[in-house]
C-alpha cells in the first residue's frame, strides 16, 4: 500500500500560543482537512526564516502557509509587518529558483479559528492544484 497524494502537500508554520491552538481546535472538533498538510509550530510567526521556506519547496512541498499571529501577537505589535517582510524575502528567493510566488500564502489564524483554518487550507489546496 502506498501513499495516495490526492491533494497538494502543504507545510504550515503556526505559532505556539495563537494559531497552533486554533489548528488543534479543528482536530478536536473533527473538522477534517487534507492529510497532506503538516504543521511546524514556532513561538511567533515573525521568527520564520525564509531559508526554511525554500528548504520545504526544494524537498517537495507544493505550498507553504503561514498561520500568522496577526494583530493578536503577544510578542510584538509589528508582527504582521515583520511576517510580511519574511514572505517578501522568501518570494524573492523563490523567484530566483523559478518557484511560483503564489505557492506561499499567509493569513492570521486565532486560537479558536478552526473553521477559518480549514477554509484557508481548502482554498490554498485548490490554488496549488491549479498551479501544478
Amino acid at each position, binding site marked *: *500500500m*502506498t*501513499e*495516495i497524494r*490526492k491533494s497538494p*502537500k502543504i*507545510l504550515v508554520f503556526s505559532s505556539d*500560543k*495563537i494559531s*497552533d*491552538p486554533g*489548528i*488543534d481546535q*479543528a*482536530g*478536536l472538533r*473533527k*473538522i*477534517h*482537512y487534507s*492529510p*497532506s498538510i*503538516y*504543521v*511546524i*509550530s*514556532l*513561538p*511567533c510567526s*515573525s*521568527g*520564520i*526564516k*525564509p*531559508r*526554511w521556506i525554500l*528548504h*520545504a519547496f526544494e*524537498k*517537495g*512541498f507544493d505550498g507553504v502557509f503561514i498561520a500568522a499571529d496577526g*494583530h*493578536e*501577537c*503577544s*510578542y*510584538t*505589535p*509589528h*508582527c504582521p509587518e*515583520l511576517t510580511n*517582510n*519574511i514572505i517578501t*524575502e522568501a518570494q524573492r528567493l523563490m523567484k530566483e529558483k523559478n518557484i511560483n510566488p503564489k505557492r506561499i500564502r499567509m493569513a492570521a489564524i486565532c*486560537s479558536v479559528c478552526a473553521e477559518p483554518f480549514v477554509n484557508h487550507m481548502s482554498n490554498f489546496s485548490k490554488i496549488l492544484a491549479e498551479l501544478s
Partner: protein
Amino acid sequence: MEEPTEKKRIGVYICHCGGNISDYVDVGQLREMMESEENVVISKDVMFACADSNQKQMVKDIQEMKLDGIVVASCSPKLHLHTFRNVASRAGLNPYNYVQVNVREQCSWAHSDQPEQASYKAAGLIRAGIHRVVYSEALENIRISTQKSVLIIGAGVAGMKSALDLAHMGDEVYLIEKEPQPGGLVAGKGKVFPTGEKGSELVERLLAEIKKSGKIKLFTSASIEKISGSIGNFRSTIKTGDENPETLTLTTGAIMVATGAEPYTPAENEYGYHTVPGVITLTEFDELLKSCSAELKYAGKPVKSVSFIYCTGMRQSQGEHKYCSRICCTAAIHSSLVMHEKFGDVRAFHFYRDIRTYGKQEILFEKSSKSGDIYFMFQEKDPPVIEQGKNNIRIRVKDLLTRKTDLEIESDLVVLVTGMVPRRDSETVAQKLKIPVGNDRFFNEIHPKLRPVETVIDGVFLGGSCQGPRNISESVQSSSSAAAKIHAIIRKDTLELEPIVARINEEECTWCEKCAKVCEYDAIFQIETNGKIVASVNEAVCKGCGACTPVCPTNAINIALYTDEGIEGMIDGFIQQVQLKAAAKGEKAEEETAPSVEMKDFPQIWKSIMEEVREKPQTIPAIAAALSQPMELVTYHVMTMNRYFILEPAGIDDNDEYYLYKLKNKA
C-alpha cells in the same frame, strides 16, 4: 555557537490514547516502522503514554538503555509537554532532549475520515520528531534569584485586593497609586451590586485591612519614573508626593499592573452632549443620585423622567471603540433602580441596541422590567436623535420592538450610558514595561482563556480592568488570580526560566544592528569580543520570539530549540516516502473484538473495576461499594472505560434503576 551533538540512542513511544489515536492510525505498524529508523534503539506503542505505569517504564527504559533522546507521539504538546519533560528529568535525561509529536489533534482526529492517509501522515510526523530530537541540545534552564516582594501599579479595588492576597501569603507589597486617594473608580460609587455596599465603604474596608496587614506599603500621588531589570529583580524608580516630591527605588520580584480603565467621555454634541442642556453621562448621573437627597433635581429643576441611551461611544463599526464594554448595561439598569428606590416615581426609558446583563445581573433587568421601565431598541444605523424641546428634551427613535415605528419621547434628563475605555496614560505604562497593547488599546494577556493574567514579559502580570471592561467582581477575580500566580513564582529563592532564547554565532555576526532594531524587548546589545564587535543577548530579557532571526543577513542567530538543523530536519521527515502494509481483510474487525490492551498500562482503579465486573455485570453503585470508592469517581472511570471500549453496558438492574456494565465482548 556550539554545534549540537547528534543523538544516537533514541526511544520512540507511540500512544494509542485508548483508541483516540489507534482507532484511525495504525499504531502497530508505525511502531514497527520506527524500530528500523536510524538512531532509534527502542520503539513502543502504549495504551496511554501519560499513565503512571508508562511514565515509570519510560524512566526505566531511558536509564537501562542509556537513551539520549525521546520522542512521544501522542496528543497536543499543550497538554503533556511538561509531563514528559518531567519524565526525562526524573530519568536523568535533559528535558530538552524530548520532543512531543502531535498525532491526535493534528492527525488522528483531524483525518478520522481518512484513516489510511492519517497513518501516512503520522509516520511523517513521527519521523520529523525523530529528526528534531537528533539535533536537539541539552539545554539548562536559566536560574535567577528572586526578591520576595511585589510592585502593584494602581490601588483600585483590583490592586488593593491582590495586595491583601499577597500579604496574606507572606509577600511584601509596594502598592502605588497615581491619585491622592486609593480606590480608583469604585471609591466614587454609591451602592454597588450585588451586596448593596457603597463603593466608598468597600474601599475604606480594604484600606483598613491594608493598614492592619503590616506587609503593604501604600504610596499615593505616586508615579513610575523608570522600570528596569527582569523577573525576579525588577528595579522601579517611583516619584511620590506632589508638593515635595521624593524619589525612591524599589526592587521587586514581580510587577502587577492594575491601572484600571476610565469612563468614555462623549464627543462634543454626541447625542447632544454639552450642546443640549440635561444630557449627561452615566458617571455624572450617579454623582447626581448621590448628591440629591429628597427630590431628584438637575440644574435646579425637578426630574420626573430619565432616558438612558445605551452603547454611547461603544460597539462602533467605524469608530475607535469596536468592542462591547459589557458592564454598562448593568450599570445603567442598576442606576435606574437606585433612582426608583431613592426618589420613587421617576419614569425611566431605556434606548438600547442589545442588553447584556449576564449571570446574576439578569435579576436587575427583570426587576427593572417589572418596575415599569420602558425599553426601546434601536440599530446602530438609526441612533436616537436628541433635541431640545420646549420644556424638556425630545428623543426620536425608530423602535425595533414595535416594527420600526418612529416614536418620540419627552424626558427631563438624558443619560448617556458610556462604557469603559483604556486610561489615557496606559500607553506610558505599556512603554515602560513593554507590555503589548491590543487593537482596543487595553493591555494584552498571553491568552484570554489559557493564560489570562500573564503577559509575555516574564514577571509582569495583569489584574482588573486594564485588560478590558470589567465589573468589580470580575476585576477582583482576575487580580486575585494574578496574585496567586505571582506568589507561586516568588515564593522560591530562585526561579527557572525556559532557555528558549536567541543565541549568537559570534564568528558569523558582523553587528549590523538589524537584530537589535527589531527586538521589542531591548534584549540584544553589542559587545566586543576578541577585538570584534558582535551582538549579545540578555537571556533574562529575551522572550525567544525569534523576530531577530530572519533579519540577520549572515544567519548568525538561532533560537534554542528552533535551530536550522532541527526545523529543516523536520521538513525532511515530513516529506520522506513511506510504505505501509495494507490492513488484511477482517483485521480491523478482529482488533475491535479483541483490543490488544496490556493491563500494566491502566490506572489501578481500572484494574479493580475490571476485576469486579469480570465474573458478573455490575452497576456503578455496586462497584463503588465493593471498592469503597466514591460514586462520582467510579462513575467517571466507568464512563471513560466505556468510551475506550474496555467496558460496555449489559442491560439494566432488576430495579430498573442503574445500568449494568461488563467487560467488552465478554458474553
